[in-house]
C-alpha cells in the first residue's frame, strides 16, 4: 500500500516505523528538515520537506498514488486541511489527529464527513480509553478484547511468588487441566518469542495469553492473583483532573468502580464535580501523600497517575505503590520513560501518542483484519481475522497448511463456541481467527488468509 503520513512527530514516526517494517511504501511529510533526515536515515521511508496542507507538497509526495493519508501533526487545522486535500485527490482512507473538541462534539457544525475524514483520533481520548480498560482488569498489564469482547488477550508479569515460575509450558499444560487457554508469547529482556513446549517461564517474564472471558476467574485463580480482599466495589484513585482524568473517571463510573479524582486547581475541581456523577473530586496536590492516605490510597485497587507531567506521574505512582496501592498505572509522554517504568515497579505505562498510533494502525489495516492490538514494548501484534469464503485455507487441517513462522493461532471462534487449536483443526468460512504475530510475520499472516 502507498501510505502518506503528514507530521514526523512521535505519532508519525511510530507509524512510519511500523508500516515500513511491514513492507508498505511510506512517504513522510514534515516541515522540519532534521526530522525528515532522522526518519530517512533510520527507516525505509521517503521524506518530503514542506507543509502537509499545501497541494504542491502533497503532489510532490505522490498523493495521486496514495491509498491512505494519515495526518498526525499537532496542529488540527493542518491535519484537517490535509484530509480535505486528500479527498479531492480521491484517496481512499483519510485519518486525522484532532484534539480540539469543536470538531468532535456531537453538535458540531462541521462533522467528520463534511471534513472528509474517515477516522478522527484524539490521542488523549485514545489513552484514556486504554487506561480505563487496564484499570478494569486485575493483574494484567495489557488487555485487549476480541470477537465483541468474547475473547481476551492478556499480558501478565511473572513475579517470584508466581506459581508459574520455572514451569515449562508442557508442565503448565498438565496443571492447566480443564481450563482452556494458550500462552502465545513470552517477552523477556526486550525480546518477544513464541514459546514451544520445552520453554520455561522465568521470573521477570511477561507472558501473553488468549482466553475466553468466562475462563478469566479460573486463570486469575491459577496465577494466584488475589482478588479476595475486595469483596465490595473496587476503588480507584485518579491523579490529575485534566481531559484524560475526566474521561477515565467517567468510564470507571460506568463500570461501578468507586472513583476518587485528585486535582490541584480549585476551579477545575468545581467543573469536574459538576460534570461527573458519582466521582469524589478532591482538591489537593498529588505529591501530598497525607491527603491521599486520609482518603485511603493504601487500600486502592488501582492508582492512575494522569497529570501532564511525566515525572510527577511516575513519582506519585511509586509513592502510592509503596503505601500499599494495589496496582499503579501511569501516563507517560516521553517515549524514553516508557521502557523504564516496569523496572521501577509501576505496573503499566501508557502514552497518548502511542495509543493514538495504535488506534490509527488498527483502522488503517481494516480489511480481512477485524481488530488488532499492539503489544507493549515490542512490535508484535494480535490480529483478528475473519475467514472469507474465497480463502484458500478452509477445510484443510492446520498441520497441512504452511502457516507462517513467527506467528501462532491463539483461538478459533465459531459463533458462540471456540477452539484452542491443534494441528487437526480445520478453518470454516465465517470463523474468526485470533493470531499473535511477531513484526516480520504480520504481512505474511495477512497474505496467508487472503
Amino acid at each position, binding site marked *: 500500500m*502507498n501510505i502518506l503520513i503528514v507530521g514526523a512527530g512521535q505519532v508519525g514516526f511510530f507509524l512510519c516505523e511500523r508500516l*515500513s*517494517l511491514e*513492507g508498505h*511504501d*511510506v*512517504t513522510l511529510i514534515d516541515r522540519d*528538515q532534521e526530522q525528515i533526515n532522522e526518519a*530517512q*536515515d533510520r527507516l*525505509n*521511508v*521517503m521524506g518530503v520537506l514542506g507543509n502537509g496542507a499545501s497541494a504542491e507538497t502533497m503532489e510532490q509526495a505522490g498523493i495521486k498514488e496514495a491509498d491512505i493519508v494519515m495526518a498526525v501533526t499537532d496542529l488540527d487545522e493542518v491535519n484537517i486541511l490535509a484530509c480535505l486535500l486528500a479527498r479531492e485527490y480521491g484517496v481512499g482512507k483519510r485519518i486525522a489527529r484532532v484534539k480540539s473538541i469543536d470538531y468532535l462534539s456531537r453538535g458540531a457544525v462541521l462533522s467528520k464527513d463534511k471534513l472528509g475524514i474517515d477516522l478522527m483520533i484524539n490521542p488523549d481520548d485514545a489513552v484514556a480509553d486504554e487506561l480505563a480498560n487496564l484499570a478494569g482488569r486485575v493483574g494484567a498489564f495489557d488487555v485487549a478484547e476480541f470477537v465483541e469482547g468474547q475473547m481476551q488477550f492478556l499480558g501478565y508479569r511473572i513475579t517470584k511468588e508466581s506459581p508459574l515460575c520455572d514451569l515449562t509450558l508442557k508442565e503448565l499444560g498438565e496443571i492447566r487441566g480443564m481450563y482452556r487457554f494458550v500462552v502465545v508469547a513470552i517477552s523477556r529482556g526486550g525480546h518477544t518469542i513464541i514459546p514451544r513446549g520445552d520453554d520455561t517461564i522465568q521470573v521477570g517474564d511477561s507472558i501473553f495469553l488468549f482466553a475466553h472471558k468466562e475462563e478469566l476467574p479460573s486463570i486469575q485463580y491459577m496465577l494466584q492473583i488475589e482478588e479476595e480482599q475486595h469483596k465490595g466495589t473496587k476503588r480507584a484513585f485518579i491523579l490529575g483532573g485534566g481531559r484524560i482524568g475526566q474521561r477515565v473517571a467517567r468510564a470507571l463510573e460506568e463500570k461501578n468502580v468507586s472513583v476518587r479524582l485528585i486535582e490541584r486547581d480549585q476551579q477545575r475541581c468545581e467543573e469536574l464535580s459538576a460534570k461527573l456523577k458519582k466521582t469524589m473530586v478532591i482538591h489537593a496536590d498529588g505529591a501530598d501523600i497525607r491527603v491521599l492516605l486520609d482518603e485511603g490510597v493504601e487500600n486502592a485497587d488501582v492508582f492512575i497517575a494522569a497529570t501532564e507531567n511525566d515525572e510527577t506521574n511516575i513519582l506519585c505512582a511509586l509513592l502510592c505503590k509503596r503505601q500499599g496501592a494495589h496496582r499503579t498505572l501511569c501516563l507517560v509522554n516521553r517515549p524514553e520513560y516508557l521502557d523504564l517504568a516496569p523496572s521501577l515497579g509501576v505496573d503499566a505505562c501508557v502514552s497518548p501518542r502511542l495509543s493514538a498510533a495504535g488506534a490509527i494502525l488498527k483502522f488503517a489495516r481494516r480489511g480481512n483484519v477485524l481488530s488488532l492490538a499492539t503489544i507493549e514494548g515490542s512490535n508484535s501484534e494480535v490480529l483478528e481475522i475473519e475467514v472469507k469464503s474465497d480463502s484458500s485455507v478452509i477445510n484443510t487441517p492446520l498441520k497441512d497448511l504452511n502457516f507462517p513462522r513467527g506467528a501462532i493461532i491463539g483461538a478459533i471462534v465459531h459463533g458462540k463456541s471456540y477452539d484452542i487449536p491443534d494441528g487437526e483443526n480445520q478453518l470454516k468460512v465465517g470463523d474468526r481467527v485470533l493470531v499473535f504475530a511477531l513484526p516480520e510475520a504480520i504481512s505474511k499472516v495477512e497474505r496467508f488468509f487472503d
Partner: protein
Amino acid sequence: MNITLTLRILGALLLFLAIALLTPLPFSWFYHDGAAGSFMLAAAISAACGGLLFKFFRTEKELSVREGFAVVSFGWTVFALFGALPFVLSGAIPSYLDAFFETMSGFTTTGSTILTNIEAMPPSLLLWRSLTQWLGGMGIIVLSLAILPMLGVGGMQLFKAEVPGPTADRLKPRIQDTAKLLWGVYVLLTGVEVMLLMSAGMSFFDGLNHAFTTMATGGFSTRNASVAAFDSASIDWIITFFMFLAGVNFSLHYLALRGRLGDFLRNEEFRFYFGLTVGGTILIVLLNMQGVYASFFDNLRYSAFQVVSIMTTTGFGTADYELWPVLCQYLLIFAMFIGGCAGSTGGGMKVARILLLIKHAQVQVYRLIHPRAVKLVKLGERPVDKEVMQSILGFFAIYLGAFVVASFVMAATGMDLVSAGASVIATLSNIGPGLGSVGPVDNFAHVPAFGKLTLSFCMLLGRLELFTVLVLIFPSFWRK
C-alpha cells in the same frame, strides 16, 4: 562497529560475485578461448569464502551508519580482490597486483589499464573486464539492494554511502524499489546502445562490451586503439551521445521515460552540465582549427568525442589529445576534475558540487558588498541545506588534498611531474587515461608496484567519494 554483521554482509556480497563470475562462461565456450576453467575456479573460491562468512557470522543486529561505511568500502575492495582471480588463474595477467589494479580500475569505472596488447586476451576475459565496469557503474551495492532482501532495513545507509553526489535522490519510498528502478533504466539504456552499435557495424561482442563500458562511463575497450580502431563516424557519434547520457543523473532519465521530459531543462545541474559540455567542445573546436584537422566535421567529431569522454570520466579515445594545442589539454584537465552529474555513473567531483561551490563563492563576495543582505545558495528553486554546503566545501578541500598527497607519492616512485599528477587525477576522478606517460595512447603497465597500489586506492576513494573510505582511517570509527 559491528564486525560480525559487516563480515556477514560481505559474505553475501561474495556469493553474489560468484554468480557474476559465471556470466562470461557462454562466451568462453562459444569462442573456445580456454578461460572457462579459471572462471569456474574463481567462482568456486568466491562462493566458498562467501558461504563460510555468511554461515559462521550470524547476528540479528541492524545495520547502522558505521557498518554502512565499512560494508561499502570493504565490499568494493573484496570485489576487486576476488574479481581479479580469473585474470591470474588463466595466466592472462601473470601478476596478481596487475590483475587487482585492472579489476579495481574496472569496478570503479576508471578504465586505466595495464594491458599492453588487449586484442591478445581471451574474449571471455575481455567481457569480464567490461562487465566489472558495468556492475560498478550503477553500483554493486545498489544492485545488491535491489536483489538481496537481507539488506532491507539499513539499506539507506548503504545507498547513501555508494551513490555519487552531495545528496541521494529517492524515486520511491522504499529504497529497494528505488534501486530496482535505477537498474532498470540502466539496463534499458545499455540494451538500446548495443542495438544501435550493432546497426552501425559492430559485432555483437564488441557492441556489448562497448555498451557496458559506455553506460558505466568506464572506458575499457576490446581494441588496442580504443574506439578509434573502428574508425566510423556513426559509431563515434553513438558513443558520444550515450557517454553524455551516462553522465546525467539517472533519476532524470527515469522521469523522462515516465514522460516528464521537461524535467531535464528544469534541472539546473543538467543545464550547467550541458552548457559545460557544449561550451568546452566549441572552445576546443576553435583551438583545433589551426591545422590539426583538415575538415571541420572531423574536427567537431574528434573534439566532441574527447570532451564528452573526459567530462563524463569515461576515457575512451579516438584521438591523441596530447598532439592538440596546450590550451586544449589545459581545458581537458579542468574537465577531469569536474566529472559527471550527481547520481550518474560518472566520476570526478560532480557538476552539482562545482555549481554550488561557484554559487557559494558568489554569495561570499555579495555579502562583502552588502553586509546585511540575506542571501541563500539555491539549486533550482530550493535553498541548499547549510550542512550539505559544508560537506561540499569539505569534499572540495579533501579532494584537492588527496590529489596533492597522491601526486607526491607518485612523484616519489620516480614518475615525471606531468605523469605523476595526471595519473592521480585520471584515477581519482575515475577517468582512465591521463597525460604524459599515461596519456590516451599509453597504458599503466610501466607504473611501479607501489604506484599501482596508490592509484588503486585513489580509484576507490574517487568512486566512493572520499568520505565513505576515509572514515575508516579514524581510530574512533573502530571503537565501541
